[in-house]
């Protein structure tokens, strides 16, 4: 089964890590995979995206417009850059985190309202899955890593769960953070069972 995932967000949110975990899980399930990351020039705070193509042997790295089965938007404004890529009937998972650029913080520039972003995704024919950052749980008093939480939600609430097995994703997570395994497992499972809108 061919399944294309586009992830968008801001450098520092762990967007590329989520893409890596998906790719690792795919390899261990013997699902053909291509992962094309883009991180521009900034260490943090710049636009980041990753294209993960599952199921197609020797897939070209780029997902065409209107071709992604799943968009994972980790930041409200940046998620708009995923809209043109969603396939009608595909999933649009938005984690409602707001990371305002400095100009917005200073009141010199506009930031798109959440409803506008959700509407744009719906208009493109997507099935919108909204994950409220306020619902992100804590583990031992600290909020769990948002990226692993979102990955859990993607497995639990979008078509990605039909392509990849939660168990293999969990193993990829544990392999990546042998020390923080407990905390990340908790984050992932919280995402799997998260209440989405």
């Amino acid at each position: 089964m061919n399944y294309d995932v586009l992830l968008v967000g801001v450098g520092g949110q762990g967007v590329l890590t989520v893409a890596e975990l998906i790719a690792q899980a795919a390899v261990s399930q013997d699902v053909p995979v291509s992962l094309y990351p883009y991180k521009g020039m900034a260490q943090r705070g710049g636009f980041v995206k990753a294209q993960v193509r599952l199921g197609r042997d020797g897939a070209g790295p780029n997902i065409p417009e209107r071709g992604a089965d799943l968009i994972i938007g980790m930041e409200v404004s940046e998620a708009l850059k995923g809209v043109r890529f969603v396939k009608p009937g595909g999933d649009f998972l938005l984690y409602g985190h707001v990371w305002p650029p400095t100009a917005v913080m200073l009141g010199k520039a506009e930031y798109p309202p959440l409803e506008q972003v959700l509407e744009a995704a719906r208009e493109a024919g997507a099935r919108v899955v909204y994950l409220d950052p306020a619902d992100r749980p804590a583990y031992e008093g600290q909020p769990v890593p948002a990226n692993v939480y979102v990955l859990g939600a993607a497995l639990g609430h979008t078509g990605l769960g039909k392509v990849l097995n939660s168990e293999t994703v969990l193993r990829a997570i544990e392999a990546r953070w042998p020390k923080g395994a407990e905390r990340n497992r908790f984050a992932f499972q919280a995402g799997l069972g998260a209440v989405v809108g």
Partner: protein
Amino acid sequence: MKKLLTGNEALALGALQAGVKVVTGYPGTPSTGAIESLLRRQPQGVHVEWSTNEKVAFDIAAGAAWAGQRALCTMKMSGLNVAFDSVISIAYSGCVGGLVIYVADDPGVSAGMAEQDSRGYALMADLPMLDPPSVAEAYRLVQVAFEISERVGTPVLVRLVTSLSHSKAPVEVEEPPPPPEREPQLIRDIARFTKAGAAICMAQHRDLIRRLEEAGRVIEEMGLNRLDLAPEPGGLGIIASGVVVSYLEEAFEVASGLGLDPGTVSVLRLSAVHPFPADQVRRLLDHCGTVLVLEELEPHIERGVHVEARRAGFAGRIVGKLDGTLDRVGEYTVREVVRSIAQAAGLEMPEDLLSGVAAEQWAAARPITVCAGCPHRGTYMAINQAIRRAGYRKNEVMVTGDIGCTILGMNPPFYTVWNEVSMGASIGLAQGYVHAGVKTPVIATIGDSTFFHAGIPALVNAVQHQVPLTVVIMDNGWTSMTGMQVNPGTEETFQPPGNRRVDIARIVEGMGVEHLFVVDPFDLEATTRAIQEALSLPGVKVVLARQECAIQAMRRGIRVGTVRVIPEKCVLCKRCILLTGCPALDLGEEAVEIDPVLCYGCGLCAQVCKLDALVVE
């Protein structure tokens, strides 16, 4: 074993598998990952280094190959421009051991540079070039490149594009053996290894042409390019090169839905783009009614097809860039492939097929700025302040820019830097502005690695010609923009064992620069005063702003201080945010807030606060 590798890693591992002995290069997105992966691996018996620039790197690799070893040199496309003086000369001489140049092009521009198509260099230098269509093929074809190089005695270019060098895919790899023991040779052959006189050079030119032809035969024999002719003649023929090949199958699936029968299409898939595969193209032209040429960037193959079509008396249509169907700009996806197939085959393509609804126009602009704690921040602020204090407006003083993180000074809130050209260009450009008659001071800004790479000759020129100029060298001890590589100025502790640090201050003094100011860019006042004084002095002045890259220092757990907000003193005037643009600062309800994870404690925000609401502890 199957491993998830980037194209860069696959290429590096393939080179090891081929028995490479010397690997050199200069960091440059998207090629950096190849040497990075080797430095992490530290293969026994293989010399791997970041060299001062690409020309130096290539000369080292060529020397090793002339001594009979296998050598690899890596660079981004702009680096090939730097190395090319030597590349074309060594192309004439040929090589003894296998010599492979890995160049990474950047269609779609992930790293702010010219969208250069390096295949043009293969044409100009008469060198064979392989253009792998996938990550897995990068692993295999770099090994093939070494084989061709040694069989024919020619350097071979291997080209990847960003979408392959950065992409990860599973690759079947072996654990590479150590390089084979080969005694280095000392071959004295004036006719081969010098350019002494017209007779020698023209004989070498003939050898070069002969070697390229031979490479073509070897490529044909190896079957690197695959021609599949449809059973029936007169149909559509497609020629695809490099990464575009990987979109073909997907495009056929989509085009089938538009009425295309893929069984009627003949396809020539190219992994070796130079020499031009004239025989296979000829067979395709003889078989097909219409030919579509698919290649990212420039129509190199397509032009060759036109020439071959003329020789073959081909009466059909050639679809590509020259007839306006395809674009010379940007990366391709399956969309471009399907559209051009539809065009070539006369199929109706619905408007919205593979074409989405734009929404990004509502996204908030996110200009990139320097990291929290970046020492360049202090330098830009000091330049701006010095210009003002010297009695000029900002738009009266030219500040030339260079490559690397230092160019971020063009962005808000600094708007300090005016231009960006190529490695080391800031210092030459600045001299041009002076000679053009600009009466106000001219400032050049450049980073440490860039200075070593190509800034030194330009500064020597300024000193020799005594050009009134202020050169600000921002020395953060690392080649940062490409992901923290060691350069000659990096502290000795972080150099590979046995390497020595080269001190920029001593270089500048050695050149005869009379006014050298060494400053700490976290001391805004002292840096401003030094730059202001430099602006008032005659001749060449150098301000060396020194402070380690904060990202690197923080990775070692270093903080230079702790900045604290005194909320009762903060009136939310936003001055600190407006002047520093520091990502660690945030507007709170009552006062400015500092992100303790991001803050390096540089204290620049505290230095601009007029109410002492920010203090460094």
